[in-house]
């Protein structure tokens, strides 16, 4: 029913939009996380994404299930790209459909927040004068 993937292939928005669209859908939101050239005045040349693929896909699936529990009637597709990404390429796509629009926005934003907290994917920024793994928020089990 849902679609969750971590892939080295270029992400195509239509694939995910179509996946979540069916006759009861009134609204689809799509989030696309894009490789930005400038961060805090520092110029990024490109990014390298790495993932613990089976666990990442499993956690994306759990995030999707969580969303459907919180907001019944939604359908979700999430894809995260790995490997070398150039400026303006898409690193992550989240598509959420719902009969009504407010839930589609809310559930979509929830998904990206959860991804940034929980899913084992890492980003290395490569600049002209160096590189660094970006350490984001850390998940602490209780």
């Amino acid at each position, binding site marked *: 029913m849902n679609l969750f993937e971590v892939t080295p292939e270029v992400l195509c928005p239509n694939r995910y939009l179509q996946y979540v669209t069916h006759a009861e859908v009134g609204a689809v939101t799509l989030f696309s*996380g894009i490789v930005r050239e400038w961060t805090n005045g520092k110029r990024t040349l490109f990014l390298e*994404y*790495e*993932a*613990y693929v*089976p*666990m*990442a896909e*499993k956690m994306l699936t759990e995030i999707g299930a969580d969303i459907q529990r919180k907001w019944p009637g939604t359908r979700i597709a999430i894809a*995260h790209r790995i490997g070398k990404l150039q400026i303006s390429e898409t*690193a*992550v796509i989240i598509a959420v459909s719902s009969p009504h629009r407010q839930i589609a926005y809310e559930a979509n934003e929830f998904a*990206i927040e959860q*991804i*940034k*907290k*929980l*899913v*084992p*994917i*890492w*980003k*290395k920024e490569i600049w002209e004068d160096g590189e660094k*793994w*970006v*350490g*984001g*928020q*850390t*998940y*602490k*089990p*209780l």
Partner: protein
Amino acid sequence: MIHLYYFAQIKELTQKKEETILWADGTVAELVKWADETYPGFTDYSWQVAVNEEYVLETEQINPGDTVAFIPPVSGG
């Protein structure tokens, strides 16, 4: 035996992506002790541990056949 995965900055410290090591039994904390002895500086890094693709606490038991991953702070999205 257990199978270990290293990612991102941890992978650069260990200079390997994965390895299989002998393991009778013990907790995550004991594996961490082994890792710090094997790879000096290991505990200077920040990471969570996942056993069989689930985040766990350091008190969790690791059994032969398990897959253990060291998960540095994630930065996907």
